[in-house]
């Protein structure tokens, strides 16, 4: 016992210090910085002055930013109410361990380890009006080719569709919860003559309710911060049809309107927090932090 009772608090502090330094620099400082500068009139390198809530008022009354908020809300709805239900459907099938279920689980997640840049470029070519695979399939079925990403009325749906159909992430989380249900419950139901479908509705779904709520909450939080696929596939166009709050933030920053960019950042954080808090209120106490994203 090398008298560690005395210097233990010091050792604990030393072990925590590196993480806390990085966390302060890249999480806490940015948060305070964004909150503060969102209240400033600040254009790039020039001097700053206090601006009150003017940046927020400017943004919220800007029709293109309103469109961005609406698009993020639509992303949140699509991820929470389409992606997660589809993931649940597949998880309910895989939980019965059909042949090859482990391989399928691994392959469904594969697109999640491929970079957003690569996926975006592949899908842009897939949607290409001249030689894209999607239009080739449509023509094969007797339809006419369409410029999916170039038409403002279809661009948002086209970008969302490819993202929402990648179910791997939520499927793995939901499947793990479903596999954790005690088998005795199913044996009892089996003896009562319940069909597989009845078992899904009376046992599996109620038992994984907490995980479903957590997944939907996370999915909607991801939707409220959606940025990358839209930025890479359409840059927010055509005519802001696929713009999101993150894209507005980037464009404001690019135009050296740092104050407005910071206000967009605060609204991005704010809307995401509202979604999480609201869903927890509605569906009860489920801790989204017990899951982790990648």
């Amino acid at each position: 016992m090398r008298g560690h009772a005395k210097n233990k608090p010091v050792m604990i502090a030393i072990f925590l210090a590196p993480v806390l330094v990085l966390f302060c620099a890249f999480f806490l400082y940015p948060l305070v910085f964004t909150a503060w500068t969102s209240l400033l009139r600040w254009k790039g390198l020039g001097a700053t002055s206090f601006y009150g809530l003017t940046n927020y008022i400017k943004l919220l009354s800007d029709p293109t930013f309103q469109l961005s908020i609406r698009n993020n809300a639509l992303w949140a709805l699509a991820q929470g109410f389409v992606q997660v239900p589809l993931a649940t459907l597949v998880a309910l099938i895989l939980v019965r361990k059909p042949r090859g279920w482990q391989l399928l689980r691994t392959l469904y997640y594969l697109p999640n380890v491929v970079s957003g840049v690569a996926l975006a470029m592949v899908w842009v070519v897939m949607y290409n009006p001249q030689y894209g695979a999607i239009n080739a399939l449509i023509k094969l079925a007797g339809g006419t080719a369409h410029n999916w990403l170039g038409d403002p009325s279809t661009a948002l749906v086209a970008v969302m569709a490819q993202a929402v159909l990648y179910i791997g992430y939520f499927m793995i989380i939901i499947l793990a919860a479903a596999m954790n249900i005690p088998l005795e419950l199913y044996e009892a139901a089996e003896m009562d003559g319940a069909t597989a479908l009845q078992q899904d509705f009376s046992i599996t779904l109620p038992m994984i309710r907490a995980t479903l709520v957590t997944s939907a909450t996370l999915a909607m939080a991801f939707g409220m911060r959606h940025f990358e696929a839209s930025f890479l596939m359409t840059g927010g166009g055509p005519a802001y049809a696929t713009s999101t709050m993150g894209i507005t933030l980037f464009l404001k920053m690019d135009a050296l309107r740092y104050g407005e960019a910071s206000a967009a950042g605060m609204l991005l954080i704010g809307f995401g927090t509202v979604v999480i808090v609201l869903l927890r209120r509605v569906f009860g106490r489920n801790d989204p932090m017990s899951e982790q994203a990648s």
Partner: protein
Amino acid sequence: MDALKPALHVVLTITKWLLLAFFLAVALLPLLWLLSNSFKTNLEMQVSPFALPKAPTLENYVNAVAMADLPRLFLNSVVVAFSAVALNLAVCSLASFVLAREIFKRREFVFTMLTAGILVPIISFMVPYFVLVTATGLYDGLLALVLVYAAINIPVSIFLISSFMGSIPKELEEAAIIDGCGFVQRFTKVVLPLSRSGLVTAGTFCFIYAWNEFVMAMLLTSSVSSRTIQLGIRFFTSQFVTDYTGMFAAIVLSIVPSVAVYAFLHDKIISGLTAGAVKG
């Protein structure tokens, strides 16, 4: 009624396999299509985009490596990704050790604060990251990306490593204390070696993130010499304006490392993703 049951069963089974096949197609076909076309000439791709390559050629790969300065971009990404993983695991294993195995004031608070970072939309930090990196003179250097990627992965790594370290039996440490191990040795000789599996899981998530990250790399670097592979394939598209299959080859090469890591360590990724789900 009973006569209908076998028919219903058949319909359900077919529906089930159709669903599984559909999502498999969505996950794999675009990538397989990319791979297949990367072995074709541009003419062949336009004439028969869906067929397998008739006479597979490696010419696209040769062109991609020559035109896009790919080796340099690859080296940058390798340096950034491995350094970010090393830094992230170093700082997170130290912190996780005390968070999982020591009792001190505000422990819960520190753990909650660090893991709550997962809920923060990182893209909202574009302005402060840019300002911080510029002010410290790190702009347009790989070190900036290493620091940012290591830091962004702190919440995930702390969660994974500390829950792994928490599951190591206390008796092992008590035996080490009796053998005369101090605070540091308990970490280096007992807990750290036993946590290898948790470190690999956290490191895999961090590697895949760092390899694939695009936005911050775009924001924090400007010159070709500090470009990562993601920026490279994004910006060199202009060079491939008429050469789609060459672009495909470059994209395929950029995907190989993260898919290779996933092929070897997919069970770690899946166990990492499910670590939180079981608690629900």
